[in-house]
Structure formats: structure tokens, C-alpha cells
């Protein structure tokens, strides 16, 4: 019974709850049990809140009885540890936040509870969302539920930074999860775990109450089991919030209705610059299959050029660290988190931040501080923001020829824990296909599409025009239908 309930899609669970096949308390209890059994192996959750979950579920069942069920009534979700949750430890998986318990709730999570959802706990992630493998978490890495075939039991990463969210969804430890994406942190882990992840247009989701990394790039979105599930979740997460001045005051479309719209007559752009050197043949094939599927479904394929693509990652590694160095200045050990006392104020600051921040976070703060320091601002930050304008302009020109773009999500399948930690730039290259959408503020989704020869999942990415998530969902829905991808991670945990 328990495993039957946890393996449902969000949409199916919603229907089951509505029909009265099971209660939210039963559903939530099944997830609590699944998490307790699996988490020692996967390390996807850094905080579990089973009692609170059952209370929320009971309240949800009561609301349903009273006839006031919301769109996510009784649906158990996992929450990335970047979202502030009232009274529940939130640390962005950094030691510097210690045992921080926010006295407030993030806007995005408050929307989910408004719509009836149930919180199962907080999900592991790279420290301050800085990483592509979950290995920079202060709570240790997440293990990907997927393993290579042929008896190779090497522990693989689920990608990052939303690795806990992706692994929890892939292992049936929640019906869906919140995540955030600054350079690819929703889409890359979705690709590595055979889940669906969408980053909406910048400004769709309020950033209020989400621990800040790079404010001009950070955007929340869901990771879910299917395209429809991700559309249902995104619909609840979005919406205007006066507390975030970049939150867009525009209506939220019915995303779920767009999923089955079809792609007949749509023009799908294939950007030649995404054919990077040394691209594995399997990724090439996946991309070609995706093109063929969309053609089959009635779309027209057009070759487009995004000439500044190769400058996106270097521009990102100026803009993101610069903004991070500013945002993370608040962690001084005075108002929250762990303080390391020294005999001077500066010594206290320096000791606190040296002890509290991990290696990658320190590296990015130093890069950011350097590129913003006197005499270098124009050469680095200002130039990067101009290159960013060029990249956004590439997309604007592409939209004259096409309605959405199709690319691979990540340059490789899941890799082993420890395999890529030595060279930061090698790790940064994980985001080569995803980071452009962040720089231009565009919506992007990753859809599971195939298994590679080792039996590991690979995703395809669809990028759309600003505010045109509906077309993105329509194309993703068509890929999902055509790919017929049904593989699941074989349970070993």
C-alpha cells in the first residue's frame, strides 16, 4: 500500500484524494515512512518534519471535508533548504547559518500552504546553491537514486544545486519539490535524475524569503515527476508579491492546460552553437531524437544562431560571484548563525566567515570581491553585464525565427561523487547549456528523454520567450509523449 501511494504522480494523487480513495494523512504517512527508510542511504533531506506533516495533512483532510479544498490540497512536498520556513531550520546547507529558524515563511512556500500542500521536510543542496553536484553541502552530498548498470555500484551525484529536490522526487520521497535555479540548478539535476524541472521567467516567482545567492539570476521553480505535475506546482508557486520589487505584477496562466496543447505549427529553433566540442555521441543522438519527435508531432524545425553562447558561462562567473559577495556580506555572526569570537571586531568577522563558509563559497566570494574592487569594476562586472545584454539580444533575434529552442540540458549524464571536485572550471561547465536562460531571464525546462548506454537518464531542454511558459510546457508535453520515457531508478536503498 505504502509504495503504491508514494509512486503516484502528483496529478494522480490529487485525483485519488479528490475521489476519497485515500486521505492526506494516509498519503503523508506513507511518505514519512519512505523518507525514514531511504534517507540514510540518499541523504536527500537535511530536516524531516513528520509530525508537522501529519498535522498539516489532518488539517487538509478537514478542509476537504468542509468543501474548501485548494488546488494542492493534501499533497506532500519537499522544500529546498534555501526557502525560509517558519520555525523549521533553514541554513542553505551552510554551517554559517548554524541552527537558524526563520520567524517568517517565504512567499513561494506560503503560496503552496495556501493551496493546501503539506511539508515533509527540507531538502539538501549545494551550500548557498553554489555547486553542480551537491558536494558543497555542509550536510554531505546527496546520492543519486540512479546507478550505472552492470553492477557498478559507484555512488553518483544527482547534480546540483537542487540535488536533494531531484533525488527526493526520483526516489518517491515526495510528490514534488521546490527548487531554485541561478545557472542551471533546477534543470541540470532534473536531467541527471529523470525528473522534470522548470525555471520560469525571471520575476514569475517571488524571491522573498529565499536565501539570496545572485539576485539578478535567482529564480524558484519546481522539480516533479511529470510535465503536468511541474505545471501544477509552478501555477501555485508563481504570483505577484509586493515584498519583492522584481516580482512581476501579471496574471498567472493555466500552465497545466498548456501541456497538452501540442506543437503543430510551432517553430522549434535548434541553436548551432550548442553543438560544443567533445559532445558525447549519446547527447548528440538524444538531441537528434528530440528534433525528430517534435517534427513528428507537427513542429517545424529551424536552425538558429546564438553567437554569444560561449561567453555565457564566463559572464556568469563574474555576475554571480559579484552579486553573491554582496549578498553574503550579511553573514557576519552578529544577528544570526554561528559566531567565532576573536579579540577584535574584524577578527570576529574574519574568523566567523572563515569557519562558516565552505571552500567553494569562499572562492566565489573572493572572485566577486575582486571583480568589484576599485579599478576592476568596469573591466569585469560592467563588461559582463554588457556581454549579458548581447546574449539576451541573441535570443531576441532568434525569436524572430522560432517560438522555442530545443537543446540538451546537460553535457553529460550523472557522474560519480568526487570525480569532478578538483577542477572548478570543469564543474562549472555542467551549466553550459542552462546558464544562458538565466542570463537572459528566460523560462527553461528539462524533460527526461532517454537512457545512455550506462543506463543513466538524459534530459532535453526547452527554452522559451520571456513569460511564454505555456509554449515551453506545450513543447515539453510533446517531448514527454513522444519519448515514452518510463524508466525508474531500480531501488537499492
Amino acid at each position, binding site marked *: 500500500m505504502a509504495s503504491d501511494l508514494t509512486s503516484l504522480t502528483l496529478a494522480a494523487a490529487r485525483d485519488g484524494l479528490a475521489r476519497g480513495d485515500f486521505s492526506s494523512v494516509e498519503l503523508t504517512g506513507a511518505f514519512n515512512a519512505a523518507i525514514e527508510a531511504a534517507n540514510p542511504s540518499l541523504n536527500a533531506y537535511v530536516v524531516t518534519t513528520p509530525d508537522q506533516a501529519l498535522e498539516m495533512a489532518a488539517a487538509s483532510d478537514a478542509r476537504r471535508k468542509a468543501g474548501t479544498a485548494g488546488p494542492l490540497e493534501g499533497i506532500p512536498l519537499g522544500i529546498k533548504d534555501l526557502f525560509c520556513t517558519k520555525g523549521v531550520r533553514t541554513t542553505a546547507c551552510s554551517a554559517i547559518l*548554524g541552527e*537558524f*529558524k526563520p*520567524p517568517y515563511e517565504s512567499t513561494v512556500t506560503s503560496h503552496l500552504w495556501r493551496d493546501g500542500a503539506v511539508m515533509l521536510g527540507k531538502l539538501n543542496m549545494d551550500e548557498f546553491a553554489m555547486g553542480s553536484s551537491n558536494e558543497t553541502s555542509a550536510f554531505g552530498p546527496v546520492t543519486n537514486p540512479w546507478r550505472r548498470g552492470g553492477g557498478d555500484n559507484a555512488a553518483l551525484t544527482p547534480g546540483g544545486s537542487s540535488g536533494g529536490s531531484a533525488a527526493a522526487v526520483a526516489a518517491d520521497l515526495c510528490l514534488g519539490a521546490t527548487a531554485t535555479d541561478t545557472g542551471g540548478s533546477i534543470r541540470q539535476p532534473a536531467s541527471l535524475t529523470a525528473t522534470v524541472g522548470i525555471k520560469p*521567467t*525571471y*520575476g514569475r516567482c517571488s524571491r522573498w524569503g529565499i536565501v539570496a545567492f545572485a539576485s*539578478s539570476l535567482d529564480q524558484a521553480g519546481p522539480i516533479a515527476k511529470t510535465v503536468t505535475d511541474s505545471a501544477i506546482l509552478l501555477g501555485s508557486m508563481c504570483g505577484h508579491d*509586493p515584498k519583492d*520589487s*522584481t516580482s*512581476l*505584477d501579471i496574471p498567472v496562466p493555466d500552465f497545466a492546460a498548456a501541456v497538452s496543447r501540442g506543437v503543430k505549427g510551432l517553430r522549434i529553433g535548434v541553436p548551432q552553437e550548442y553543438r560544443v566540442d567533445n559532445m558525447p555521441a549519446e547527447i548528440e543522438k538524444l538531441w537528434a531524437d528530440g528534433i525528430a519527435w517534435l517534427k513528428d508531432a507537427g513542429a517545424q524545425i529551424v536552425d538558429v544562431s546564438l553567437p554569444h553562447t560561449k*561567453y555565457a558561462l*564566463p*559572464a556568469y*562567473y*563574474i555576475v554571480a560571484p559579484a552579486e553573491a*559577495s554582496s549578498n553574503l*556580506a550579511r553573514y557576519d555572526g*552578529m*544577528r*544570526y*548563525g*554561528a*559566531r567565532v*569570537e576573536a579579540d*577584535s*571586531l*574584524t577578527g570576529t*568577522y*574574519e*574568523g566567523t*566567515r*572563515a569557519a562558516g563558509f565552505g571552500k567553494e563559497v*569562499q*572562492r566565489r*566570494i*573572493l*572572485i566577486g*570581491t*575582486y571583480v568589484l*574592487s576599485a579599478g*576592476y569594476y568596469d573591466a*569585469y562586472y560592467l*563588461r*559582463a*553585464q*554588457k*556581454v*549579458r*545584454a*548581447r546574449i*539576451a539580444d541573441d535570443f531576441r533575434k532568434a525569436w524572430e525565427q522560432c517560438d522555442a529552442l530545443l537543446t540538451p540540458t546537460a553535457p553529460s549524464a550523472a557522474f560519480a561523487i568526487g570525480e569532478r571536485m578538483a577542477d*572548478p*572550471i570543469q564543474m562549472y561547465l555542467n551549466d553550459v547549456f542552462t546558464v544562458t536562460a538565466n*542570463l537572459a*531571464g528566460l523560462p527553461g525546462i528539462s524533460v527526461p528523454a532517454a537512457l545512455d548506454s550506462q543506463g543513466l537518464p538524459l534530459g532535453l531542454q526547452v527554452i522559451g520567450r*520571456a*513569460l511564454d511558459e505555456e509554449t515551453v510546457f506545450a513543447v515539453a508535453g510533446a517531448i514527454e509523449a513522444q519519448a515514452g520515457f518510463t524508466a525508474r531508478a531500480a531501488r537499492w536503498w
Partner: protein
Amino acid sequence: MAVDATTVRKVARLARIHIPDDRLEPMAGELNGILAWIEMLNEVDVEGVEPMTSAVETRLPLRPDVVSDGGKAEDITLNAPRSADGFFIVPKVVE
């Protein structure tokens, strides 16, 4: 624009992160690796390009200049390493 140990020490001081002496050289190496890669941006012609500031054309909203929240000293000091009576206790700042 290669970075040396002295520059790392200076930047680390600006960022208020203590870097032990034996980490200055290795950190300079790591930063130089990243900075050398970033140099690629010098190839891009950005003459006359306005720096990007937002993804969707929008105007910063204004709100009435009134107090909308407050009176939460206890909440705000809840997570402080040291606090008393709704105040943060901090090290001596002025000698």
C-alpha cells in the same frame, strides 16, 4: 591581470574572510585559473552596448512611504548568537 598572494590577502581582508598564510598561494592559483578563463570576454565587442539590468522590461514599483511592518524585536533577535531584551549583543565597535 594575474593575482598574487598579496592581492589575495587584500581581497580576503575586504571580504572579511580569514585565509591562513599557507593558503594564500594556492588560492591565488585557483583564482587565476578562473580569471584567465573569464578573460575570454575581452573578445566581445561591447561598444555602445547598454549593460543589462533586468530580464523583462519593467519599472521599479513604488509604494506609499508608510510603516507596514515592525514591532518584532523578539522575532528579529531570536536567532542571534548573543542578545538581551530585544537587542543584539555585539563586540565593542568603537574604542
